[in-house]
């Protein structure tokens, strides 16, 4: 790799459109070839009457049905592998601690390629080997932590693997080690501002911060600007998902006019979530990705359920990799809070287990102060208790704890009277998102 002043990987970043699409086709065909050794894809191709050897253009992929999280969850995740399991060196998982989680497997080359992509992203925004990078994301199964960690080391910056939480220590680390770049959940950035205030500090003068990566949670343009002003940084939005690799799928360049999807590594389609037909250029639809540079577990036409649009025209930075807008919402009912994907189904299962009977419930997402909060309202039916406040308190504690273990976010559980919540009108009404930054810009 030979970085120039502005590009980590000028060969890939500065490809012309034609060359880029030729590379995409070449890599797509290689990927399809790999897939023929996976038990899942063998059956998938057969049932769709799809001959991977006959793909002669990118558009031919529309003959293959889309897959999504349910496809991944439906059975043994190793059946997607195109390599022996021994060649797998890492797994990641999207969320949840039980059956609902989706698993992604990586070979050593996959991990390399992922770190390379995120390095490209970080370098694009100005991160250099002289920087000190404080990674304030959860490490572990969640990809946000390790994804950036490896990339920053690859660039040669010093990494402080701070992880999430412990606000005062975060600030102490920033000051002691002269942190210049942070990776932080946007709502946490706002919260941390209050802690700076309590300590009598102003991040603009009390730290050396200059760049903030604010991903893992939907946020508005207004929130980005507020973070930029109050911290005195350039804040960059990013997009990624565990199934593709994690962060590094799409990233903002210094123009901050949409996020460049690295099309040498991902084939992106924007589809109407109902008809699954391509939408008109620039129109909103569901992002569907095909991995082009993945060994262990390639994914073909993977529905993200994330709604966004592609910005028309070329970016002033000179990269032809197409840019996507902020995520405008979800085409299903999954939601993201504090960087964690949560499915209403997970909540439902916990309630069923905790209460022994099905109960009407509702999930309300709200912004309280500067933090996202998840409230779970549960109707208390007559059979759930024997008439004492004490029991109700115990019930509430139990539900809170079990939900925390399941979704990894501590919810505020409220017990409400029977009939006070709208009765089962389908999944959509189970979640009410009142967050200020819940929907795009």
């Amino acid at each position, binding site marked *: 790799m030979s970085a120039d002043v502005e590009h980590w990987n000028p060969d890939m970043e500065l490809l012309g459109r034609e060359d880029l699409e030729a590379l995409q086709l070449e890599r797509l065909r290689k990927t399809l070839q790999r897939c023929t050794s996976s038990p899942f894809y063998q059956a998938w191709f057969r049932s769709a009457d799809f001959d991977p050897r006959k793909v002669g253009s990118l558009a031919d992929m529309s003959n293959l049905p889309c897959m999504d999280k349910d496809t991944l969850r439906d059975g043994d995740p190793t059946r997607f592998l195109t390599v022996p399991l021994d060649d797998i060196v890492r797994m990641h998982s999207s969320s949840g601690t039980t059956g609902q989680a989706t698993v992604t497997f990586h070979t050593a080359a996959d991990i390399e390629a992922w770190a390379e992509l995120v390095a490209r992203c970080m370098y694009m925004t100005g991160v250099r080997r002289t920087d000190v990078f404080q990674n304030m994301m959860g490490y572990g199964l969640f990809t946000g932590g390790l994804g950036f960690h490896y990339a920053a080391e690859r660039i040669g910056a010093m990494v402080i693997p701070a992880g999430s939480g412990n606000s005062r220590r975060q600030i102490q680390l920033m000051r002691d080690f002269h942190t210049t770049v942070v990776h932080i959940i946007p709502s946490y950035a706002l919260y941390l501002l209050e802690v700076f205030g309590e300590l009598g500090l102003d991040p603009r003068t009390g730290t050396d911060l200059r760049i903030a990566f604010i991903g893992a949670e939907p946020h508005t343009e207004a929130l980005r600007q507020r973070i930029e002003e109050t911290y005195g940084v350039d804040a960059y939005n990013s997009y990624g998902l565990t199934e593709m690799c994690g962060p590094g799928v799409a990233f903002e360049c210094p123009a901050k006019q949409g996020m460049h999807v690295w099309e040498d590594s991902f084939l992106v389609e924007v589809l109407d979530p109902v008809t699954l037909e391509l939408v008109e250029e620039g129109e909103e639809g569901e992002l569907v990705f095909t991995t082009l540079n993945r060994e262990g577990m390639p994914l073909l036409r993977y529905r993200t359920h994330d709604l966004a649009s592609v910005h028309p025209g070329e970016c002033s930075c000179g990269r032809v990799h197409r840019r996507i807008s902020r995520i405008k919402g979800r085409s299903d009912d999954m939601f993201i809070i504090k960087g964690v994907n949560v499915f209403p189904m997970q909540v439902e299962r916990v309630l069923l287990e905790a209460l022994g009977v099905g109960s009407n419930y509702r999930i309300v997402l709200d912004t309280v102060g500067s933090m996202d909060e998840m409230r779970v309202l549960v109707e*208390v*039916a*007559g059979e*759930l*208790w024997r008439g004492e406040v004490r029991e109700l308190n115990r019930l509430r504690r139990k539900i809170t704890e079990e939900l925390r273990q399941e979704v990894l976010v501590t919810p505020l559980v409220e017990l409400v*009277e*029977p009939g006070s919540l709208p009765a089962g009108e389908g999944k959509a009404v189970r979640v009410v998102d009142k967050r200020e930054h819940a929907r795009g810009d």
Partner: protein
Amino acid sequence: MANQVNVFAQNQPGRLERLTEVLLEEGINIRAITISGADEYGVIKLLVDDPRKAFEALQREGFSAFMKEVIALVMDDQPGGLHRICRVLGESGVNVEDAYGFVFQDRKTAILVVEVENVSAAGEILGSKGLEFLSDDELYSL
């Protein structure tokens, strides 16, 4: 033994009003009412002349209600009356979960309502110690 109706209620304006409205519509007379609560919700405890009817009406109206046996002890109408009962309860090793007292309109009779885990066992012990307690009918006829 007497029966009490426990009702789960959120702390929201109008809930108590709705509850008493239901009882009024059923022609139910409330002897005593207490509210014990956490912050956002609580339990309303009702001593009424027809607990079964009240319980059914409240359930029908969508309240989360529970019928609970309690011990309604008659207190001596003189200083030390409550103390005497409490002493007996303590000596008998009866674990009181909740209790509240009220005085009838004639201001001559005071009642201490006691919730315990095992009502019939506790009733036997307290009866053997000479404490007097009332049934639903007796409560109502007072």
